[in-house]
């Protein structure tokens, strides 16, 4: 009995370690490749991504409205004023390391900025741009 319970204890300690450690599921480049697959052969452009990021698209906000013109800098939510951690992976290692999270935020933010979902091309361009931004 003692053995079983100590084994369970060890396993749960190990499992907790896995949960609490900042292990990233994916790298930003893997995320980019996944978007590339969706984009079916189109090539991405960091320059195009930069203008897309900084421009308004018929609505009140651009990406930069919250994330600022420098994606390596901290931002502020345009409405609530809440701090936003930097978006560029060079300045924030957590960014673009979880595909589900990336999809969730593209869906939300594209809806806020463009009033529609973004195309794989647009997402790929923006991520390509963000990957060129140095800290």
């Amino acid at each position, binding site marked *: 009995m003692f053995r079983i319970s100590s084994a369970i204890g060890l396993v749960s300690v190990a499992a907790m370690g896995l949960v609490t450690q900042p292990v990233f599921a994916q790298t930003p480049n893997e995320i980019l490749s996944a978007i590339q697959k969706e984009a079916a052969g189109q090539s991405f452009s960091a320059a195009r991504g930069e203008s897309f990021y900084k421009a308004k698209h018929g609505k009140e906000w651009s990406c930069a409205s919250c994330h600022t013109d420098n994606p390596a800098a901290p931002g502020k939510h345009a409405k*609530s004023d809440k701090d936003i951690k930097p978006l560029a992976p060079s300045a924030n290692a957590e960014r673009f390391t979880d595909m589900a999270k990336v999809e969730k935020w593209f869906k939300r933010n594209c809806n806020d900025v463009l009033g529609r979902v973004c195309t794989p091309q647009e997402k790929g361009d923006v991520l390509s741009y963000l990957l060129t931004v140095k800290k």
Partner: protein
Amino acid sequence: MFKTHKKFPQIVAVAVLAMGVAMSAAQAEDDDDDEGYRGAGHSEQRGEGNSGKYGGEDRGKPVQPAQINAIWKQECSNCHIAYSPGLLPAESWRKVMAGLDKHFGSDASLTDQENKEITSFLVKNASNRWSAPTAPLQITESAWFKSKHDSHEIAPSVWKNPKVKSPANCQACHIGAENGDFSERNIKIPR
């Protein structure tokens, strides 16, 4: 007849006094989390014959349960603080959670699973002192909020301070708001 008439003002006086005593007792009991707060507007609202304090639009006690839901905390604190479930009634939370794709001007949509889990946490821990049939979408629309933040309590200049920015910014003054602490001792109005 004449005698009764003569006594009438006295009866009224006694009745008013008794009401006053009863009200302050009720208030002291109700507001023991507010450390002696005596707000203007309470008696007015109560005199209208609505059930409960603030015409039935009262926040829960506690406003936040000891056991919080991790997904709620994570998802609801991305763009603003995770507002304590007890600040609104269950029906308000159901409405908020059903309209996340258009959440006060932003798309805040979640996966179905996340939405279900968070809604259940909010509904379960919603205000337990809300008896009115109302269900505002904004905390600032509720009678308890308005009464506690009216011009007798908070000078209008406070709201104009850029550090406060909006009444939705609880933590600008309630320094423990993120943990559901709205007690009077933890208020610091920025200058």
